[in-house]
């Protein structure tokens, strides 16, 4: 792997089976993601972009090919190893935030840290710092139901960054937000990329969201279509 490359994807294939039918989803995908890159994956519905994101994030397994992230081929890891690897290396941001409704913002952000050997005081310091980064230090005792959609997504981002993961993966992070909230979220993600040098891989339909990305890759019917991946939006 070249220096500066954090994610290296080679010859990735993935298909789903429905009865006797085999439906190809990703076809011979190969590309690299540089460390600190902000990549947007775009394409029509059913193009395979979310599947690709799931494979990179280690929550699904390809039929063939390799995904090397930080020197580890995640396609060779067992379920248990993958769970441990995800805890340390991947921060997830979902379209519908996916916060646990019975836990406060603080407790939601603390969740991934339960799996670490950090002490209670250390966990508290990390959570407070993450919530401060996303501008919600004053909302840490609020439950998701007491927050706006934009605030919920910011809590989700705090949860994603609290373990300082190798990559952040975001699946339509603005898909459920109004325009202003969506812009705030994209600004926050941009800031995380610029200031904290976080590598971000984002699936989106929204060209406005994609504008923040350095690189845009288009998928159509499971095939990468743009050779020139620089963001021209």
């Amino acid at each position, binding site marked *: 792997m070249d220096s500066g490359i954090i994610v290296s994807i080679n010859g990735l294939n993935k298909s789903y089976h429905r009865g006797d039918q085999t439906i190809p989803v990703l076809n011979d995908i190969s590309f690299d993601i540089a460390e600190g890159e902000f990549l947007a994956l775009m394409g029509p519905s059913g193009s395979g972009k979310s599947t690709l994101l799931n494979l990179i994030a280690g929550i699904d397994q390809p039929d063939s090919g390799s995904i090397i992230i930080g020197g580890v081929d995640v396609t060779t890891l067992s379920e248990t190893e993958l769970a441990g690897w995800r805890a340390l290396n991947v921060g997830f941001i979902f379209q519908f935030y996916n916060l*646990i409704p019975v836990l406060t913002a603080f407790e939601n952000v603390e969740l991934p840290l339960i799996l670490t050997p950090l002490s209670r005081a250390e966990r508290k310091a990390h959570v407070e710092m993450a919530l401060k980064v996303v501008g919600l230090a004053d909302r840490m005792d609020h439950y998701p139901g007491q927050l706006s959609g934009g605030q919920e997504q910011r809590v989700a981002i705090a*949860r994603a960054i609290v373990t300082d993961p190798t990559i952040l993966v975001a699946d339509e992070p603005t898909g459920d937000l109004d325009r202003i909230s969506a812009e705030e979220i994209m600004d926050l993600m941009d800031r995380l990329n610029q200031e904290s040098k976080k590598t971000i891989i984002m699936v989106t339909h929204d060209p406005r969201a994609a504008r923040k990305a350095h690189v845009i890759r288009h998928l159509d019917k499971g095939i990468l279509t743009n050779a020139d991946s620089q963001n021209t939006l």
Partner: protein
Amino acid sequence: MQILKILFKNAFRHKLRTGLTILSITIALLAFGLLRTVVNAWYAGVEASSAYRLVTRNAVSIIFSLPLSYKDRIRQVEGVSEVSWGNWFGGIYIDEKNFFANFAVDAKTYFDLYREYAIPDDQKIAFFRDRKGFVAGRKLARRFGWKIGDTIVLKGTIYPGNWEFVLRGIYRGREPNADETVFMFHWDYLNESLKKTAPTRADQVGFYMIGIQDPARAISVSGNIDGLFKNSFAETITETEKAFTLGFVAMSDTIITAIELVSFVVIIIILAVVANTVGMSVRERTNEYAVFKTLGFGGWRIAGLILGESIVITMMGCAVGIAATFPAATAFAAAMGAYFPVFKVEPATIWLDIVFSLSVGILAAIIPVYRTLKVKIADGLRMIE
């Protein structure tokens, strides 16, 4: 944040549903506890019986008597230390619903043999001196508010007439499972009255109670006693006090088996109720468990969350159920004390409550755990609550 906090928060996410499930467990364990206590109460007499005592009765049936003269021959059998005798009197106090056990006993030998009944010396002497005297168990005296010196009339059913007695002593059990509801009066009083009113029934005893020196020789001593009266007009059967009491319990064997069966069926029903609650809760949160998985929670941790939630629900029901069992048993004993002289919740019943609750908690979670672990993260994330 501790995992326990998550378990409690998850368990009470649907307060009404969880509350009703806990209530179901509480009622089930209350029913289980009471039914087990009823079964234990049935066997209380067996538990209280002494290995140092034998009982001899008529070989045909307990309702047929034996001659008083047998006592001297029994006393001579090697290994026999004491012999006492008595009759079931079957008297009614005011009304049939005031049932309690009442016996005519040979007072002196009886209290020598039944040392688990403690009676103050002055009361014992007063009882021995008064031919019409009787002693009552502490619970029986309390039940009817009897005091020393009170005159009590029993209406005879086996021995017709109104029989007058004076309370001379109140005994208490030295052991927790001793029966404190028995009424005992002088066998001589009964016998002398019979000599006047029904001479053919005089000098007959219902059963002999025999003290032995060595419980290990109970079988041979029993055989020797019965051998004495072989081919007589009143052959005997001698057995250990435990076997004799078990014989009475065996008459109700089918009812006891039914009660035991019902007590276990209750547990199976509650397993279905808890399994349903946990299953519904987990299914509704498939998406959340997928999120937990993405955050790095492995299979064992996810299983722990579901199992823990199930156990939290069952153990809360268990705690309330156990707490409710004691006052319920006290109320039951107050109402049914005449039929269950020893009615107390045994530690074994509480342990069974805990073991069953834990088992129900674990079993109820097995299928939800299996299903949750089987769901692929990507599929789970697509499921919206």
